[in-house]
């Protein structure tokens, strides 16, 4: 497929059937969740909600039946995801495990690892963090310094991770660390491990973000003992595995739907008869959402066919996060409502919250500059 093709990929009927299920679930479980909480979207943590969603069979939908999944395709997961996101459901507890940890384990894990972790993920009970970034390794992920050294048939891990979303309320992290001090290849000598966040030697410290909330963390590893079963996939092949994981991380509709609650309150605020400026800007957002959804479905089709959607996903994420970030900017242009914290109308509160949150949309999951580099490579420029 050409980089710019994004051929039309309709949602197959056997995936579309899940929409009814998830909407029924949401109409029961979202009734009492106010807009300001919906604005949290996939940063909203609610373990009880996740467990109920798991019990309803709506997590790990693509996983094998023997692990509690429903062996559905990527489109089924897409349908469920977009409904949850559009409703602003608090999905953060299980989101990462469902989106990337379970598929990673299914692909690279041993049967024993799969049996141990996947059923809990599917039930909405076991939560994972992503251990990639370190204080000195942000965009330049290959410069990580955390290191696992052989000890008997296991390893001993030292180092630190940072910005790990939900580590303070997750059970495990899948971390990329060095297993060789010096590798000839810049992307060699790295491996992925499952780390029990309650294990001795692991310290998790929440970091307050600018909204005052605690979403991400700093993690310290001091002589953490890792047994042989902690290694995911192949020793030394961590980089390739992480790239596969990132394709899952970047490919979903959460990369353009994070600000949906603001679009909802904004439309409510403006009412049924917008002036021409309001109509233009709301329409511009809506039109781009349609186009992004079409592109995202095309990425889903690639995932479904087992193709690598890396650049297509980067393309959707870069356009999508730019749009999400524009929404608060546009909202404050279109109405006189000032942002308010802990008071004011739903719209004022959602505006205040998403205005503050928006800068992170183009950072988490890879910055816009890194994504454009991936696109440039796909175009044959690098």
């Amino acid at each position, binding site marked *: 497929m050409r980089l710019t093709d*994004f051929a*039309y990929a*309709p949602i197959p009927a056997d995936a579309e059937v899940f929409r009814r299920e998830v909407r029924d679930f949401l109409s029961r479980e979202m009734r009492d969740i106010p807009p300001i909480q919906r604005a949290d979207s996939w940063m909203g943590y609610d373990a009880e909600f996740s467990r109920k969603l798991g019990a309803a069979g709506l997590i790990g939908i693509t996983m094998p039946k023997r692990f509690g999944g429903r062996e559905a395709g990527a489109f089924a997961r897409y349908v469920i995801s977009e409904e949850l996101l559009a409703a602003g459901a608090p999905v953060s507890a299980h989101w990462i495990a469902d989106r990337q940890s379970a598929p990673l384990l299914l692909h690279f894990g041993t049967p024993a690892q799969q049996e141990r972790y996947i059923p809990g993920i599917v039930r909405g009970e076991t939560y994972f963090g992503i251990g990639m970034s370190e204080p000195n390794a942000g965009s330049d992920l290959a410069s990580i310094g955390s290191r696992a050294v052989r000890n008997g048939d296991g390893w001993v891990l030292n180092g630190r991770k940072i910005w790990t979303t939900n580590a303070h309320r997750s059970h495990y992290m899948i971390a990329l660390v060095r297993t060789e001090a010096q590798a000839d290849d810049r992307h060699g000598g790295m491996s992925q491990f499952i780390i029990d966040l309650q294990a001795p030697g692991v310290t998790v410290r929440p970091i307050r973000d600018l909204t005052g909330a605690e979403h991400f963390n700093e993690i310290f590893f001091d002589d953490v003992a890792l047994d042989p079963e902690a290694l995911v996939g192949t020793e030394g092949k961590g980089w390739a595995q992480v790239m596969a994981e990132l394709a899952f991380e970047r490919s979903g509709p959460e990369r353009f739907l994070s600000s949906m609650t603001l679009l*909802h309150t904004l439309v409510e605020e403006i009412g049924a008869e917008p002036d021409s400026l309001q109509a*233009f800007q709301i329409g511009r957002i809506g039109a781009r959402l349609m186009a992004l959804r*079409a592109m995202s479905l095309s990425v889903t089709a690639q995932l479904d066919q087992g193709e690598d959607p890396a650049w297509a996903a980067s393309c959707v994420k870069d356009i999508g996060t730019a749009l999400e970030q524009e929404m608060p900017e546009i909202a404050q242009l279109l109405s006189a409502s000032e942002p308010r914290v802990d008071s004011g109308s739903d719209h004022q509160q959602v505006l205040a919250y998403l205005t503050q949150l928006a800068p992170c949309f183009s950072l988490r999951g890879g910055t816009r*500059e890194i994504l454009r580099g991936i*696109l440039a490579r796909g*175009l044959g420029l690098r």
Partner: protein
Amino acid sequence: MMKDMFEETAERVLGDLITPELIIASENGAWPEGLWHAVEENGLGLAAAPESSGGVGGSWHDAFVLIRAAGRHSAPVPLAETILVNWLLGLAGLDAAPGSATLAATGGDLADGRFSGTLGDIPWGGQAGHVLAVAGGNLVLLSSADGSRTGAFNAAREPRDTLTFDSASPVALAPLPASWPPETLLLGGAMIRSAQIAGGLGRLLDTAIDYANQRIQFGRAIGKFQAIQHQLALLAEQTALASAAAEMAFAASETAPSPAAIAAAKAVASEAAGQGAAIAHAVLGAIGFTYEHDLHFTTRRLWSWRSEFGSQSYWAQDVGRRLCRQGESGVWPAIMAMTPARAAKG
């Protein structure tokens, strides 16, 4: 697949025959007889007309790639218009128009079965054999020769004529199907322009990448500079957006033009046209500003097509009003409804 076959045929016919010289001649008023002959020989204008009306029987969605290719190659003939007109005639139960055809988004009057009115902004109005218009709730096919013409050109010197008819007898006439919106021809025109814009942007992207890989400054190809790489990534994004949006509009319109999807597609494509043209010109430097280089054949068309059959602003406002009418809980379902879950046919 019909779609692949269409794309292949379009690349062969249009790619081989359309040269800068042919476009220049056309911009100076010549009708490219050879090209149009090849178009007819390959049945391209009849791609989406049903077999019962003399067409090839492809779906409207299949025709997307043909119309995108017409944009990609700056086809100096009313190919996109002919495909659209024959598709609409077929849906309305009428025979395909013989030869080339075009359309007028503004309507006229029908009295005692005769058509009168001044139709403006008709693409290739002087060259195309027939014009499709709407009058009194009817779809009316007119012979262009029956109108008196005032010529005009868009920024790419493509003809955008005014034809005045005085009591002309329609070549064919049928009531506008009940499910069709009254502004069907405006929507149809907006839809084909969206696809042509996507094709034009694809051409710009290829041209700009080739240039960036071969132009050396400061001892290396300019494509090695991150600033240029990121500009081209943005051009690729705009191309992808326009193409995905336009294709979605076609897919949503299998049985009749789908107003919301077309509005969204034209709004997205029109914005992409301006942004894409600006990036391509920046990357090509002074050479791209010459008449000699063929970049401008595409950029001047993009600057024209984005305004034709409704600008970005016109269509974005249309989408915005639709969404505001839905209210808070209807916004997401409305956006979803623009992207059909299943192809209506095939």
